[in-house]
């Protein structure tokens, strides 16, 4: 019995190895493959699943139009399961086994950081659709979400001008995006003459659900006689209990407005917003943008998901822009070869869903309008302010000591993601 078993074991091991090869072995090259790398399970599924659906819809639609370069597109969907090392593994699988031409994916910064070396090593393209902290510019990544200057700073400007806010609470989840954004905002506010005493910074863990103490602190901080506002970089899941506590403790937008950078239509769909009317969010797109392009997109999306109540949000728009840019760049380059597409992408301009055009800049960030919306009772946003022009994403913040001298330009001849204008060298601040 034992020898039989050991033979079986040996066979199983070898068989398994062979199967790995077979599963991921080369497939027929008739279509252009596009990787979709969004978590469908685990903690991030809540945000990322929608983006997978958007990608499938966009690819579907493009195929109805005849595909790209005469070939059909094929989506390769994988589930990195909110597990960061798995993101890297799946990215590697998509690029080297499935031979995708580009990948649309990631939500959290850590997932992007996890896959970045893979994309650089295997030289492929990632479109990253979420607002993030900046401080990065990779040749292989195209950032279609907002950099801090495309979201945070215009929002603060709005609050200062329109609401006369003098005192600021910067509340965030303890991870890199809020940390960096708050560092930038702190520097910005101080530059605008706000005293250190008038800034309160608070960090909470992921998924924080008991906000009593913090909301009480905010209330207290706000009762110093100066107009106070909260700038919230609280992430995902923690927002619902935060807003519920806010509403219940009776903090109204007319008293202490909260402006959030991570709360969009999808997050509000899980909330009763009647008590939150007037709290704000800053994005580059709202579902309530009243232009024909957006109306058409919403119609298509609701038809595709077969749900007339399905909402749209900013990262979805970012994928729409990113995908259209990629299609245009591939057509321009006449090939899906990543090197050529990367070069072709810079300068590509496509319509965004807020009635204008977004252009891919040499730093791999795009130009966007900044919209400020107030929450309405129906869970939508009332757009109360819109920057007159488009704002270019600033990857290296001017308000951070380490990065104020850095710029990124991926065009020849510079071709550098962290060029130091002070020393004239590529490669950071190089003390």
């Amino acid at each position: 019995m034992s020898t039989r078993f050991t033979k079986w074991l040996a066979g199983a091991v070898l068989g398994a190895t062979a199967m790995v090869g077979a599963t991921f072995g080369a497939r027929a090259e008739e279509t252009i493959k596009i990787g979709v790398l969004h978590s469908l399970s685990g903690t991030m599924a809540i945000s990322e699943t929608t983006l997978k659906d958007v990608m499938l819809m966009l690819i579907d639609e493009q195929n109805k139009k005849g595909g790209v370069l005469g070939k059909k597109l094929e989506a390769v969907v994988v589930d990195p399961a909110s597990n960061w090392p798995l993101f890297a593994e799946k990215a590697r699988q998509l690029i080297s086994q499935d031979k995708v031409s580009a990948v649309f994916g990631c939500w959290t910064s850590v997932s992007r950081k996890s896959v970045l070396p893979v994309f650089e090593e295997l030289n492929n393209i990632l479109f990253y659709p979420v607002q993030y902290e900046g401080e990065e510019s990779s040749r292989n990544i195209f950032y279609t979400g907002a950099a801090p200057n495309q979201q945070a700073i215009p929002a603060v400007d709005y609050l200062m001008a329109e609401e006369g806010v003098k005192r600021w609470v910067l509340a965030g989840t303890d991870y890199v995006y809020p940390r960096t954004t708050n560092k930038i905002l702190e520097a910005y506010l101080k530059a605008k003459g706000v005293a250190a005493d008038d800034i309160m910074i608070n960090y909470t863990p992921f998924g924080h659900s008991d906000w009593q103490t913090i909301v009480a602190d905010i209330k207290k901080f706000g009762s110093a006689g100066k107009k106070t506002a909260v700038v919230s970089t609280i992430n995902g899941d923690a927002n619902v209990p935060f807003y519920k506590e806010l509403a219940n403790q009776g903090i109204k937008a007319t008293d202490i407005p909260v402006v959030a950078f991570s709360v969009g239509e999808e997050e509000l769909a899980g909330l009763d917003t009647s008590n939150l009317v007037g709290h704000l969010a800053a994005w580059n797109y709202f579902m309530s943008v009243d232009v024909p392009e957006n109306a058409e997109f919403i119609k298509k999306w609701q038809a595709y998901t077969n749900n007339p109540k399905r909402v749209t949000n900013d990262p979805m728009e970012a994928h729409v822009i990113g995908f259209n840019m990629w299609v245009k760049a591939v057509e321009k380059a006449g090939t899906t070869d990543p090197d050529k597409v990367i070069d072709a992408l810079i300068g590509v301009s496509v319509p965004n869903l807020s009635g204008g055009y977004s252009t891919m800049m040499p730093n791999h960030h795009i130009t966007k309008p900044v919209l400020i919306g107030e929450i309405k009772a129906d869970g939508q946003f009332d757009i109360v302010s819109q920057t007159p022009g488009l704002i270019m994403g600033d990857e290296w913040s001017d308000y951070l000591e380490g990065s104020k001298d850095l710029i990124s330009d991926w065009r020849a001849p510079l071709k550098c993601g962290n060029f130091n204008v002070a020393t004239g060298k590529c490669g950071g601040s190089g003390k």
Partner: protein
Amino acid sequence: MIMKRLFGSDAMALWFLACLLVVTVLVGVLNLATPADSALHVPTYLVALLGKYLCYAILALSIDLVWGYVGILSLGHGAFFALGGYAMGMYLMRQIGPRGVYGDPVLPDFMVFLNWKELPWYWLGFDNFLFAMVMVALVPGILAFVFGYLAFRSRVTGVYLSIITQAMTYALLLAFFRNDMGFGGNNGLTDFKDLLGFNLQTDGMRVALFAASALALALCYLLCLWITRSRFGKVLIAVRDAESRTRFMGYRVEGYKLAAFTLSAVMAGVAGALYVPQVGIINPGEFAPQNSIEAVVWVAVGGRGTLVGAAVGAIVVNFGKTVFTGVLPELWLFALGGLFVFVTLLMPKGIVGTVPQLLDMMRSRKAQNAGETAKPEAPRPAAE
């Protein structure tokens, strides 16, 4: 019976080591020596993937040593794995030097943008490979020793122990999430460039890391085999089966538990250290209690109390995860969760314990069929 048992498992050990050797050599050669378009070529992607499985196998082995042989169900072994990984990650971060995006010669990028001015004291020394390797073993070892000393001395056992190990890893998870801790917060440590001066992204380096993982697995396996076969190992099993009997026999049980637990933690740390350069990131998520529980499930799937089983379980489950997250992205959790339920209910001895049994049954059925009358066979309880 006893001869058969011993012979059986010895043959299994031999087969296991032989398979490991063959796969390692084969993968190495087929990756490096065949052209990329050859049908025989093993892609680098697969090398990294297999290397990851092997690290998980070491982790599973370390869990099996304490769970399968001493009866300590640790739901916090992921913490030791992660600590080993962080020690390695810190070395790799220091190796980046001025190649970080900010070009700071000393500080890792995340410290630069958080405006840290100098390296915290606990990062000192990690630029030295030897020091870092010592830490890979020492940090998990010391944590396990202190934790185990306190827990075993006061005779915390069974479920209680499982739950406080979970609390331990959960506390570490929260601590490492804090950016103020100086370990990169949620983003963890990433963007590694090279190890001992060799570029991590070359095929040669990947094969080397894979081979190192295979070697580490083989060594850990042999070490565990030797320990469990020694009289020390017999005492461990005695503790698992009848703790107070062992105690009343004059064995100071806590000493044995502590030794096994600490050794196991060191093994987990080594696994973590090998894992990090191959996956390219270490982040507090590795401390998540779910990860530790999952690792325990690998052992259960493979066969608790059989060292080969632990390794096989880790590889099989993770292989399944790789396949299903690609093939059935929306349904794979059903498959994984279902597997766990299935194994605990119907295969309490795991793959390695059950498969020989099935083969045995099949053989006896065949023999029966060959005989004059095929009597209806009474169902055999799976647990026997």
